[in-house]
């Protein structure tokens, strides 16, 4: 009876997410001779299974989440039908992604310009990156546009999109399949997974469009962006320059970045706030940048 009570309490702890406490309890229980070694191990295993969160999401699942996040963003933003600009942004973006710490994702990195004046960009999990025309045109050099895209690549590298998903959904999704394996899913399980999927897409898009990531995640993405720029041979200070230009366009009550990002001044301060002087413009880069953006000089 005592043993059943203890087991029930430990199970409750596991379900309540107090994994380490449950593990400790199991250890104590075993020490006191109330639980067998087998029971202790079994409890520890359940803790390990339930405590897994976004880290246990495979790149393949991340890919499917990212596809639906991007598709769902495209219900509010129209794509820009401009093969020249989209081609250029993909060449540039791929070059940056290859120099990141996570160049390989399940479906690879792909970039698309959105037909919107907003100073905004979105990184869907797995590497589908959407950037508004307004933000592209705000940049004055290829190096600055590289800073914008490197920041988005960094969000994919850090799997920030997946971190926005409520742990409870992933736990549910992951336990359903540990039972089911890869067998063809029955109607009820598929419905259950589809609900968790739907919720996950809402969590990620809601974060990208409305609430934004934590300030620490933005700082980490800015720092990673600077490393990527340096590796590729861009001016790492282009990030500071881009943030300074953005500060000049900043409308704290405006849509897009203002709602989801710390102010450019804060971001500059968080990465060491060095003021960047005039850009050292590389002519060949500037020429192709201007051509791709359709700027006549």
């Amino acid at each position, binding site marked *: 009876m005592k043993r059943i009570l203890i087991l029930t309490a430990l199970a409750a702890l596991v379900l309540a997410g107090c994994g380490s406490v449950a593990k400790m309890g199991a250890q104590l229980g075993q020490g006191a001779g109330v639980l067998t070694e087998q029971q202790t191990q079994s409890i520890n*295993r359940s803790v*390990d*299974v339930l405590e*897994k969160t976004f880290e*246990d*999401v*495979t*790149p*393949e*699942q991340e*890919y*499917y989440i990212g*596809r*639906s996040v*991007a*598709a*769902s963003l*495209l*219900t509010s933003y129209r794509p820009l039908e401009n093969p020249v600009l*989209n*081609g250029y942004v993909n*060449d540039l973006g791929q*070059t940056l992604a*290859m*120099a990141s*710490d*996570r*160049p*390989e994702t*399940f*479906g*690879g990195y*792909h*970039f*698309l310009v959105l037909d919107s004046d907003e100073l905004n960009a979105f990184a869907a999990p797995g590497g*589908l990156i959407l950037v508004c025309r307004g933000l592209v045109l705000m940049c004055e050099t290829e190096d600055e546009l590289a800073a914008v895209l490197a920041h988005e690549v960094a969000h994919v590298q850090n799997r920030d999109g997946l971190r926005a998903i409520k742990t409870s959904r992933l736990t549910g*999704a*992951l336990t*359903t*399949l*540990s039972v*089911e*394996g*890869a*067998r063809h*899913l029955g109607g009820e399980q*598929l419905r259950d*997974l*589809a609900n968790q*999927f*739907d919720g*996950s897409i809402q969590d990620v898009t809601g974060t990208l469009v409305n609430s934004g990531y934590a300030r620490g995640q933005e700082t980490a993405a800015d720092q990673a962006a600077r490393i990527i720029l340096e*590796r*590729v*041979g*861009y001016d790492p200070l282009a990030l500071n320059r881009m943030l300074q230009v953005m500060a000049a366009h900043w409308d704290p009550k405006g849509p897009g970045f203002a709602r989801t990002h710390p102010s450019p001044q804060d971001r500059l301060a968080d990465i060491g706030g060095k003021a960047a002087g005039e850009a050292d413009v*590389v002519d*060949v*880069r500037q020429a*192709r940048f201007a051509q791709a953006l359709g700027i006549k000089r």
Partner: protein
Amino acid sequence: MRHRKRAGALALLLLIAAAVLAAGPQRSVQVREGKLRQSPSFLGKITADVAYGDRMEVLEETAGWTRVRDGSGRSGWIHASALTEKKVVLKAGQGDVAAGASGEEIALAGKGFNEEVEKTYRAANPDVDFAWVDRMETWTVTPDQAAAFVSAGKLVPGGAR
């Protein structure tokens, strides 16, 4: 006679064990389309395609890159982010799954959020259009294109680390 047979079998077992131990650690390809390259760089010539779930033996590791060999003896460099230490199981009912190996050791391909779940999501959200997402995924940059972009822009080939 019987003893000799037994000794022979034992020697054979030891040889197999030695061969297994001598082999490098194993990794699995965790991306849809993996490439093996001649050198540890995305600008390196592609020598072979490898598929999701393929098992690879590790021969050598260097900053971010792993030199591997697959079951049919093809070898080359692949970025470490394309590999996982887990065994990717493509079909259910394989031994490891039945034996209840933990998620730390194996990853079930096609589990959880998969194509089927996406289909269900699309049926429930008919206003969400995937046409542009599918189109984006066809936009790729070949190693030659990347090399041309890097060299024309006076950038660092291969993103020096």
